[in-house]
């Protein structure tokens, strides 16, 4: 009988439409019904008890208000064991239903299906990197619609947490281990992606987008051409910055333009300034570096010195701790996260700083 009651109460098709109101942003994943359904169920239980408690409270305040300091005392019990057992036991049944609904949906959330499209996530202070199976990496998350997507996440430094409100998913990104997250998007479009585990100064700047691509290219769908591409089309576009229309000047690839964009999206800007002022606890500022590259002067290292040239910058990106400058700490390596044309673009951008 309890099982029947449970199924009955857990069946959202029996719930009238007006009762399915909640404060969440519109769901865009297969988890929506489980999360929103449980939320609505709890919300109506809460509204019932809140109205009961506060209604009685206000009613008693008015009806039994004190008239004189020596009001004649009305008789009333000091306890009533059956009543007290009743209001201890009956709400417990509601709690069992809440637990059961939460449990069922959670197991689904934590069990990725076998046929997932795999994306690697690397979180660091303060940027996201998403790596696709073909080696392309981006700072926004792009996924195909109607496909099971699994994120395998790791952190380079401290705790982070990946949260996409419309997908109803969240998972901490923990240094020293992998954590997983999966979802299946229902509609093309873009939504917010937040970091929700405090990670320092730019924690609230770790906001990026989760873009869901349609199954067919849709030339009339959206003002933003990127959103109209289907996923394979986008992947080709993303894997080669030299074909990216945003980085064209007069129809030709402009590495300085691309470098300026990569400076922000690859997270360089968190530690390297474009002036001669060092960011607190950050790495070498880029204006003096630009000057050094132009003049080919020697750069002081912790052990010796090195001539400032393209190879020095390239090595500093891929193996940053091979040559460590005096007075500076460690930098995470970008090995496998940046392709050659991207490194070329960064070098071109640095060189363009010293006018």
């Amino acid at each position, binding site marked *: 009988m309890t099982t029947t009651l449970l199924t009955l109460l857990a069946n959202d098709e029996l719930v009238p439409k007006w009762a399915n109101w909640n404060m969440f942003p519109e769901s865009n994943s297969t988890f929506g019904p489980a999360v929103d359904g449980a939320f609505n169920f709890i919300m109506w239980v809460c509204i019932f008890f809140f109205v009961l408690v506060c209604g009685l409270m206000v009613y008693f305040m008015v009806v039994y208000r004190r008239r004189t300091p020596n009001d004649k*005392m*009305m008789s*009333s019990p000091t306890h009533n064991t059956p009543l007290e057992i009743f209001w201890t036991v009956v709400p417990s049944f509601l709690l069992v239903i809440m*637990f059961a609904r939460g449990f069922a949906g*959670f197991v689904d959330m934590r069990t990725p299906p076998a046929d997932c499209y795999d994306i690697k996530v690397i979180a660091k202070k303060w940027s996201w990197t998403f790596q696709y199976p073909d080696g392309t990496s981006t700072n926004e998350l792009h996924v195909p619609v109607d496909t099971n997507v699994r994120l395998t996440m790791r952190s380079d430094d401290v705790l982070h947490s990946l949260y996409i409100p419309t997908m109803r998913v969240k998972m901490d990104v923990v240094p*020293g281990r992998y954590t997983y997250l999966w979802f299946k998007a229902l509609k093309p479009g873009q939504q917010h992606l937040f970091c929700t585990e405090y990670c320092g100064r730019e924690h609230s700047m770790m906001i990026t987008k989760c873009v869901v691509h349609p199954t067919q290219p849709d030339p009339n769908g959206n003002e933003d051409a990127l959103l109209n591409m289907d996923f394979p089309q986008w992947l080709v576009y993303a894997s080669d910055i030299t074909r990216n229309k945003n980085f064209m000047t007069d129809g030709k690839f402009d590495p300085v333009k691309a470098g300026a964009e990569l400076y922000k999206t690859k997270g360089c800007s968190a530690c390297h300034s474009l002036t001669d002022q060092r960011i607190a606890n950050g790495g070498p500022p880029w204006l003096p570096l630009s000057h050094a590259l132009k003049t080919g002067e020697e750069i002081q290292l912790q052990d010796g010195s090195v001539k400032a040239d393209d190879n020095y910058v390239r090595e500093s990106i891929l193996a940053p701790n091979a040559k460590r400058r005096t007075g500076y700490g460690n930098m995470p390596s970008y090995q496998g996260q940046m392709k050659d044309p991207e490194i070329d673009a960064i070098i071109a951008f640095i060189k363009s700083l010293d006018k």
Partner: protein
Amino acid sequence: MATDISTTPGSHTQPVPPQTEPDYLHVSSGFSSWAFTLDHKRIGIMYLIGVMAAFALGGVFALILRTELLTPGPTIISADWYNQMFTLHGAVMVFLFIIPSIPGALGNFVVPIMLGTKDVAFPQMNLASFYLWVGGAIFFVAALLTGGLDTGWTFYTPYSTTTSTSVIAATFGAFILGFSSIFTGLNFIVTVHTMRAPGMSWFRIPLFVWAIYATAIIQVLATPVLGITLLMLIAERALGLGIFDPKMGGDPVLFQHFFWFYSHPAVYIMILPAMGIISELISTYSRRHIFGYRFIAFSSVGLALLGFLVWGHHMFTSGQSPAMSVIFSALTFSVAIPSAVKVFNWLATMYRGSISLATPMCYALAFLFLFTIGGLTGLFLGTLVVDVPLHDTYFVVAHFHYVMMGGTLIAFLGGIFHWWPKMTGKMYNEFWGQVSSVIVFLGFNLTFFPQFILGTRGMPRRYYNYVPEFQSLHVMSTVGAYVLGLGLTIALAVLIHSLMRGKKAPNNPWGAATLEWQTTSPPPLYNFNYEPVGRDPYALHEMEYDASIDGYKHNPELAKLAPAH
């Protein structure tokens, strides 16, 4: 059973003899008479001043935070300052204010008198507990002045082991404050067990004392774990022990287990004393015997014990195994029951009462409203699938402010107004007291209700910057914070005004039946100038109003007219 307590031979029938010796405030004077006092009442007053100063500091941080959040991006301070402000707001409010507030200030003052004894069991230890609090506060201020603190009050690793701010000073401060808390708890446990007046059997102890007793059990059992955890954190930072940092072979999630193993029970250190105050207030101002005394008393102890088993519900998205999350979710629902039982019992106490809307009752009713919301919204967070999107968003921020501030702070204010005449011997302005409670209530809801919506819409907590679609709700919340600040300022002004201009308080202005009202206001040094005996603390029908003293007196004749049970 509780029914016939009022007619048992232990009933106190003698009138309070007139005051012949100076009260505790006037028995001695000068700085050292306070600094080295062993009187639980003076220690309580010093705690009261201390925790109110800490609250003011934490409150200023809160107003700075809310002002910064008026607009996305920079408003008045930088991101680094914002991170320091929310860290210090949380750390000061939790460690320096909420945890010591009710046990340290009101518990110290009231518990021994309620038990009919002249002091706590270990007066020196009681004074030491206060000075440990001062020591902890000094370390916190030192951390603030020497590099600040930007880890969040939770000190999560590996951020806390790698940031350049004064983590060691602050954690050492929290470590010292832990001992202050243990000393207070130990004192209350021994006092309740060994120092009760003749006739004060376990089921004649006022429910406030039951709540403080349950709290003390948690303080003594859980706080050492916090001490160990913070020492390990200090050792990791100072010596490079690899306990939590994966770079040295540690596990950051282990820190979260340690931290919440203390900090979840600590939530009950914060809320149980508040529930105790509410039991006293609702009964007194409804002039009704508390309903279901034993259910309330046992639910306090039940909460204290169950509170140890649910820490993992802070970690559903942390990377702990799903099986553990499931177990912790199931256990979490079990703590909902004792809290609900208390709310129903308080309501039943009001039924057929004679309800006065004096200031303390206004705060108690505000507590009922706000704590009901705070408790019910916990159900969303205990439900696994719903917690996933809500975790670490403003929904959580709103939930725990409804419980900690709407619960503990509001009850603390109600308790201060209730016991103020006893503590100071002065009556405050009733009208302005009521005004303060209404403004605090409205300001509170305006501040924190929009945060439930913000969190559900996806606004993460601890964000300096946010996406523009959240701005209007943030503005509402900030305006609410200013209103709340105004209400609290009025409450403080009412109390200070009473010290200068207040009428002399009668022994029992509210008609309460607990023992602290059966002595003079303020009490003498050793609390009673007669031998008190334990009796039913909720026999309110035996109290009779006497207009000539504007207060209540015990009338033994009325005991025979006990209302039917």
